[in-house]
Structure formats: C-alpha cells, structure tokens
C-alpha cells in the first residue's frame, strides 16, 4: 500500500479521532484494547475500537451532545471509558475524566466548574455519587453507565449498550455525520480537561489541545522508540495526566495496545499475565512492590535468603552499570549472568516485568536505593519530569545516561530554564492552553515570554540534567537564614521502607522537626518477627521499640543531610510518630498522595508546638472519616523524641 510520507501523515493525523481512524485503516486487526473480563483477556482490534467509538459518538450526538460540550468520565480503567474520551473528542466535545475514588462532595465542585451536562460512570457506585451530587449540580442532565449490575431500579439513566444502540440507529439515519464531525475537528481544539488536585486551593481544570498531547506523545515515542507492538498496563486513575499520556495519547499515536486489569485487587496478577513492555508507576508503587519483595523473601529458607542477599549485592555493585552499558569486569558480568538466571530473571518474572523495555516513574522523587534496585535487576526504569500543565512531559532520562538524583534532560521540543529564584520554567508545544475559566491564574502561570512556571525549585547538574529539590513555594529559610527544603528532607526519610509519610517543619524556626507515618505492613511484619504484639496502627505507632526503629532511620537521614553544606542545618532534631495514617479522605494528602503541609500544620498545630516547646508527650484527639463515610475519633498520647545530629565537619560517611 502506498503510504504518504511521514510528515504529511503526521500533519493530517493531528487529532485523536483521526489517529483512531488511521489505525483502524492501517492496522485494523492489531489489538488496540484488552480487558481481563470473565476470566480471559477480551481483545478489541483497532477496527473494533473505532466502531465502538463511532457508535458511542453517534449515540451521544443523538442525545444532543455537541461541539464544545463537556463529558464527565468517572470510573476505573475500562475500555469503554477510554472510548468515551475519543467519542467526545470526535464530536468536538471535551472529555473530563474525574478521580473515581473522590467522594460525592468533591464531585460537586468539578461538575459545576466544568458545567457538566453529560456524564458516563462505570458502575452503580459512581452513579450513586453523581446522583448524590446532582442537587447541587443543576447543569447535569444525562448520566450513562457501563456496568448494569444493580442498576435495574434506576430511572433516567441509560446503559452503555442502549447509548450505542441509539448511536447505530442515528448513524444509519445520518450517513457521513461521524466523518464530517471528525473532519471538523482541529489540532487547536481542546482535547481534554484534566483537573489538577492542586496541593492548595480548589482544583483547576487544565485545558490541553490535541496538538499539545499529540506532540508530547510523539516526542516521548521517538525518544524511547516505542512502536505499535508495545503494550502498556492501564491501571492508574484515568483523571491523572500520566495515564492520559501513556494509556491514551501515546497509544493513539503509536498504535500500541492498552490493557485494563480485571479489578484493583488483581492488578499484580494481571500485570504478570500481560507482561507490558512499557510501564509507568509513581514511586510509591515501586516502593510497595519492593517492600513486598523484601517481606516475602524474609519468609524464605536460610539458603535462599543467603543466595538472594549475595546476588542482590552483586546486582547493587554492577547491575545498573551493566544495564547502562558501562564498563564492568568480566568476573562481575559472569556473576551477574548467574544471578540473572537464579534471581533477577525470576524476580522480574514474578513482578510481571520480564518484558519491560521502558519503565518510567515520576510525580514524586524516588529513593536512590529504590531506583537503583529496579535498574540493578535489569529493569530499564527511568525518571521523567512534567506537570499536568505540560502533559506530564518536560524532562526525560535518555537510556545510558540515567542518574539517581536527576529527572533527565529537557525532552525533544521543550525549552527549559531556571528563574533567578531557582524555579523551573518550561516552554513548548505541550503547554496548557489555559486553566478553565481562570484567566488570572493562567496569566500567573504563563509569563509573557510563554514560559510556564512549574512552581518547582531545581538546579542543573554538570551534564545539564535537571535536579528537582522541592516545591518553590515550600522552600523556606530556618531562623538562621539557612535553606530549608522540607520535601527534600521528607523524601530522604520516606526512602526508608519503615517510613511511609513524613512532614518536616522548620520555616522560620531555628531547628527542624518532623511528623512520621510508619508503613503498617513493613513495620507490622518487623514487629511480628520480633513477636511484638500490637492491636492496630495507633497501637503499633506508639511502641517504644518502633520509636527506636524510626530514630535510627532519622539519624541515617541526618547523616546524609550533613554531607551537603547547604542542607546540613536542616537535620531533624525531634520527631514524633503520628497516631493515624495521613489520608486523602481527611484532606491531609492530595489524591496523588502529596502531603498538604500547611493544612497538616494547622490541623496538628498543638503537636507542632509541643515539639518546639521541647515537651516529650502530647495528647491529641483527631476526627477521622472511614471508607463508609462514618466518622470517628482517634485519640492518643504521643511521645516526642530527640535525635542525634551530626556537624558538617564530620568526614563523609562511605
């Protein structure tokens, strides 16, 4: 078949609906979507996907959905919800994916802000939340659902099948309508609105154009040489920019298949079955995986543990280097080869990562040990840097030049510089068009030279790779004027498997103190091995043994901090272990699990004061929200402990 030359092709394939039709034409029988359902991987080819989208789009049109309207999409990663995005786009409308685990109350704001009239929900649970929100959302007219389970008594909702049926009738009645709608689309149109769960204030709707996401997708695809034969596991919230880039945009540009797990519980297993070649996960997931690995290996027999320990140490020594193609002695290469047979290979296999060619992590800084672990067992894990406003696309780590503490070089087509306050500024085709209905905020975020202010403080290293220290606005000063980068400290702490969350305080104070959240599974396991009985998180967190355990971690972190003159003063002097886990439902974390430092500081002011007042006990009672919406109070008498700090003059620890 006579292919048009690349650039013309690219020029004409400038919206997602066009890309969809393109794939349906050039690779009609190539898998586009797989979903684990009814025990097997149900597969849809690009042609089938295109037909589904067509029927759906026509259905929406029949229901009166038209150019410029917004379609709310709420649910776990389901093929039909991804199709809904394309369907809305085909009609010139804008899909607005929303975080499915948010309570109805949080729905209200977004639904109103985006003037949602049409919404597609995954199942009864989401529909219920929509209906709960409805009274406060006058605009909401039409609700559709994917899974009919338990929906029979609902009135004025329409099932997905019904919608598509209407669509097919409509399509038959209006031949050419769909094509004409797709043709009417323009690269400059808004392709999606993603709400940033901003660390402060109400979420903002980030309007991204087809062009922006397609450019970002294409850049990444060329950068990592992705092809239609790659496959990705789609398991992260659809409302999150990362998932939209990897599971939607890049899939549509490169034509590779996305795979939806059966349910949240089966993700690990489904990943093992599918074996994606292209993988994305925020650091916390890699962290959880590693924790699991460690825990499970601790149950193994002595011999196996020895073997594991030995080869892990081999890997630590030379694994990452071998992966980056660096100089490694033949002896080590041999050891690594054996290790690969006995440990790394099997480990990749049980983790479902055997086939991974490229894996990315971003969203928060990843611990060096963690990062190195995955690279050392031969998984090409890299870091990238980006924001919702930049289609999660600003910096990428090139193969062979992967560093532990940077986020890579500016990505193709991205212009990047630092403001004089050290804030990272980016410019490029992937920038947001605007914050929806927030001209002021938009103006604030994009300066007149067209640079977007990321709000991150960073610096370039020798090879021009970007290194992110902290949120620009969070970077504060200790009373003595020394630099105070709370995130940096918190991350250092969180790198320890036993510490799940940490909150550091110190701005305007003369010392640094911290709240700690222990990792229940890791510490719990640790406790069991010492047969230390505990009745739950609060109880465990209060145990003196646990305090000792955590103190060691903090002291190590201090040792590392002490090595960097600029940060030596922000060593943690005192800490306490919180009596409850920080939780998005209590607004202490964002949906992407970033700590809301200010909020926490206010909520637990009494604890902060206690720490600085030098008290070593403090009572606190906190109201909490349970999954089922009930409320309760957790009260505890918290211990506050001091930590040894080191002076910079000490020789560097090895």
């Amino acid at each position, binding site marked *: 078949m006579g292919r048009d030359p690349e650039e013309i092709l690219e020029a004409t394939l400038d919206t997602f609906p066009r890309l969809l039709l393109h794939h349906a034409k050039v690779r009609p029988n190539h898998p586009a979507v797989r979903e684990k359902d009814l025990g097997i991987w149900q597969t849809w080819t690009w042609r089938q996907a295109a037909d589904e989208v067509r029927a759906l789009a026509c259905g929406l049109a029949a229901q009166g959905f038209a150019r410029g309207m917004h379609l709310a999409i709420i649910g776990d990663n389901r093929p039909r919800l991804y199709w809904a995005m394309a369907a809305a786009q085909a009609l010139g409308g804008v899909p607005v994916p929303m975080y499915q685990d948010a309570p109805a109350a949080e729905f209200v704001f977004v639904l109103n802000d985006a003037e949602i009239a049409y919404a597609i929900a995954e199942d009864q649970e989401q529909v219920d939340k929509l209906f709960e929100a409805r009274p406060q959302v006058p605009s909401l007219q039409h609700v559709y659902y994917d899974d009919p389970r338990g929906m029979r008594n609902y009135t004025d909702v329409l099932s997905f099948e019904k919608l598509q049926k209407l669509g097919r009738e409509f399509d038959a009645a209006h031949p050419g309508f769909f094509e004409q709608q797709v043709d009417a689309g323009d690269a400059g149109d808004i392709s999606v609105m993603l709400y940033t769960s901003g660390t402060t204030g109400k979420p903002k709707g980030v309007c991204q154009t087809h062009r922006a996401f397609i450019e970002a997708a294409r850049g990444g695809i060329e950068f990592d040489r992705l092809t239609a034969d790659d496959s990705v596991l789609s398991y992260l919230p659809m409302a999150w920019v990362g998932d939209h880039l990897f599971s939607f945009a890049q899939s549509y540009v490169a034509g590779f298949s996305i795979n939806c797990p059966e349910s949240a519980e089966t993700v690990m297993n489904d990943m093992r079955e599918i074996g994606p070649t292209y993988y994305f996960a925020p650091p916390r997931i890699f962290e959880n995986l590693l924790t699991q690995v460690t825990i499970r290996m601790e*149950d193994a027999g002595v011999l196996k543990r020895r073997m594991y320990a030995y080869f892990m140490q081999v890997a630590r020594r030379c694994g990452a280097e071998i992966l980056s193609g660096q100089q490694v002695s033949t002896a080590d290469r041999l050891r690594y080869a054996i290790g690969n047979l006995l440990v790394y290979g099997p480990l990749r296999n*049980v983790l479902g990562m055997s086939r991974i060619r490229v894996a990315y992590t971003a969203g928060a800084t990843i611990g060096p040990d963690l990062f190195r672990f995955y690279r050392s067992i031969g998984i090409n894990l890299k870091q990238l840097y980006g924001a919702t406003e930049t289609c999660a696309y600003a910096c990428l780590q090139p193969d062979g030049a992967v560093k532990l503490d940077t986020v890579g070089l500016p990505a193709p087509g991205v212009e990047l510089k630092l403001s004089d306050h050290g804030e990272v500024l980016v410019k490029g085709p992937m920038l947001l068009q605007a914050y929806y209905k927030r001209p002021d905020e938009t103006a604030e975020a994009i300066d007149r030279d067209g640079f977007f202010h990321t709000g991150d403080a960073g610096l370039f290293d020798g090879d021009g790779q970007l290194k992110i220290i902290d949120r620009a606005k969070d970077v504060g000063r200790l009373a003595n004027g020394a630099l105070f980068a709370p995130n940096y400290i918190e991350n250092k702490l969180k790198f320890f498997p036993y510490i799940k969350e940490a909150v550091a305080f110190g701005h305007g104070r003369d010392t640094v103190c911290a709240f700690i959240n222990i990792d229940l599974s890791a510490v719990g396991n640790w406790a069991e091995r010492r047969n230390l009985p505990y009745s739950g998180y609060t109880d465990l967190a209060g145990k003196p043994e646990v305090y000792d355990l955590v103190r060691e971690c903090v002291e190590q972190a201090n040792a590392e901090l002490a090595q960097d003159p600029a940060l030596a003063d922000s060593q943690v002097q005192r800490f306490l272990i919180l009596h409850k886990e920080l939780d998005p439902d209590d607004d202490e974390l964002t949906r992407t699990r970033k700590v809301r430092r200010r909020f926490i500081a206010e909520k637990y002011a009494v604890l902060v004061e206690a720490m600085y007042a030098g008290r070593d006990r403090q009572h606190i009672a906190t109201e909490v929200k349970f999954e089922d919406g009930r409320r309760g109070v957790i009260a505890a008498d918290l211990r506050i402990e001091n930590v040894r700090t080191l002076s910079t003059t000490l020789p560097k620890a090895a």
Partner: protein
Amino acid sequence: MLYREVGQYRTTYQADAAIFPIRQDRIAMVALLVVAFVAIPALGSAYLFSAILIPFLILSLAAIGLNILTGYAGQLSLGAAAFMAVGAFASYNFVLRVPGIPVLGAFIGGGIAAALVGIVFGLPSLRIRGFYLAVATLAAQFFIVWALTKIGWFTNYNSSGVITAQPVVILGWHFAAPREKYLLVLAIVTVMALAAKNMARGNLGRQWMAVRDMDLAAEVIGIRPMRAKLYAFAVSSFYCGIAGALFAYTYLGTVEPEAYNLDLSFRILFMIIIGGVGTILGGFLGSAFIVILPIVLSVSIEWLDRSLHLSVPTSVASNLELIVFGALIVFFLIVEPHGLARIWQIVKEKLRLWPFPH
C-alpha cells in the same frame, strides 16, 4: 525458577482450559515424548524394555484405570487385577475364535468385555459404600480368577490352565522384539493417558469428583450418582482390561489366571496411593516407584551379599519388599496422602514463585 510466565495471557477459554496452559510445561512434555519415542528406543537395552519399561507402562495404565474409579470417583476397588484378567483372556479368545480380527481390535474387545464385567460388579455400588463396596470388588477378584481357572473354555481347555498370547501383528508388522513391543505399549498408553486426562478434566470427571466429595449435593444439582459411578466402573475396567491384555501379549506371553491375583490388585492400589490419588500423573509415578523399588532392593541385597559375605536368604529379599511397601503405604497415607503427584505439584509451584517461598 525456570518458569517465565509473564506475557502468557489467554484470550480464549480454549487456551485457558488447556492441559498444559504454561508454555514451559508444553515444551517439557514434548521433550519427554521425544525421549520416550526416539531416544530410548535408540539406546535402550532388551532388559530395559522387557524388565522395566514395558511393565512400568502397563502397570501405569492399570493404575490410571484404578485411579479413575478410586481416585476420581471415590469407589475403593480391590479387584483391579481381576478386570485385567478379563481383558487378557477376552482378547485371547477374540483372536482365537474371531477369524481375521486385528489384534488391536481384540484388545479393544477385551477392554469392552472388562468394562461390561466391571459394570456388573459395579452394580452393588448403587446401594453400598466404602468397605462394603470394597468387599464387592473382592468378590469380583475371587470369582473371576476362579471362573477363569475352572471354566476350560476360557483357556481353550489348556491342560495346565494357561493361555499363550498369539503373536502381535498389526498391519503386517510383527511386534516381536522387546523394542517393538515397548513402542506399541508406549503408543497405546500415551493415547489412553491423554484420553483419561480429557475425561478427568471434563464433565465426566467433574461428576466423578462430585460424587466422591459429596454425593448427596451432587444428586441435588442434577448429577445421577448411579450413572456416574457405573461410568467410572466401566471406564476404569476398560483401562484395566487393556492393561491386562498388554500384560499378557507384550510382557508375560504365557499367563495363568493366578497371575492376576489379589496381590497384583493390591500392588496397583499401592501405586495410586504412593503415586497420588485422583491424578493421572500419579499412575505413572506410582507405577515407576513400585516397578523400580524391588529392583533396587534386590540389587542392593546382592551387593550386600557380595561385599559383606552375609548370605541373605532369597526369601528375605521378597519379605523385605513386603515390609518396605507396607511401611511406605502407611508413611504416605500419614505424611503425604496425595502422594508423589502432590509433591511434584508443590515443587512446581515453588519453581513458579521462585525466588519467593510462597
């Protein structure tokens, strides 16, 4: 550890229901078959064939048969050998009295004959359970052997009451040499083992297991326990019958009914206990174990004789065998009631989860 299952996802129930859903297993299986059908015939000695492999395969087949009845359908049988006898003598008479019948045809005829007899002695199972049924099968054991001995017609009125198996000729090819016999037996056993596996994993097998695990519940959801049991008896006896025929035609050559005595029945029972009740694999493992054990014992005793010059009376060897068998049965029933097959399964699971312990 050697398993690499990532990316082996199934898009159809067909693939999901495969006997060996994991690629590595399929490869291993093919390799095994190649060894059995090509390598061994090329390298094996006559002794290996006729003293070890042929009996091993035949008894495996019988064990599979018994396992269908006892392991899957839960009907304890102490008469497996009797049904083998029926198969053998029926085949003999088919060849003898039906002019121009192909040997394989005679074998199948023997199998069917055994199946019919099996159904007859299975009838009591419709009313009685457990030991009571075991007794019924004992009755079969004694009655059949007695009948074959006493009724001359079966042995073609041979004075010494033995039959001499006719030469095995299939499509003009004469299976005389041990190697040829081995290949014939191997082929038959392979096919029948596969068939057994198919039944076991299909509707029939589920009915058997349902009747075994909770017959009343099975009845309530529409399974006919009687039919399921009789099927089990028929199929099981068919397998034993074929095994019996092969026993006569490819192993012993000249047989008396007593060759299929209670002792043989017990040995086959032991095979499935040691090998693994309710698995096809168990039949092979158990049979291998019980065929090889005596050889190992006698060899080691000989060695003792020669090296330590303590002249062990020959009777000791056989008694030692009894003791070891007995002890093993008890041991397995206590320590691993699911036998070698389960052990193998556990090892396999460990390999799949490697390096994790569980």
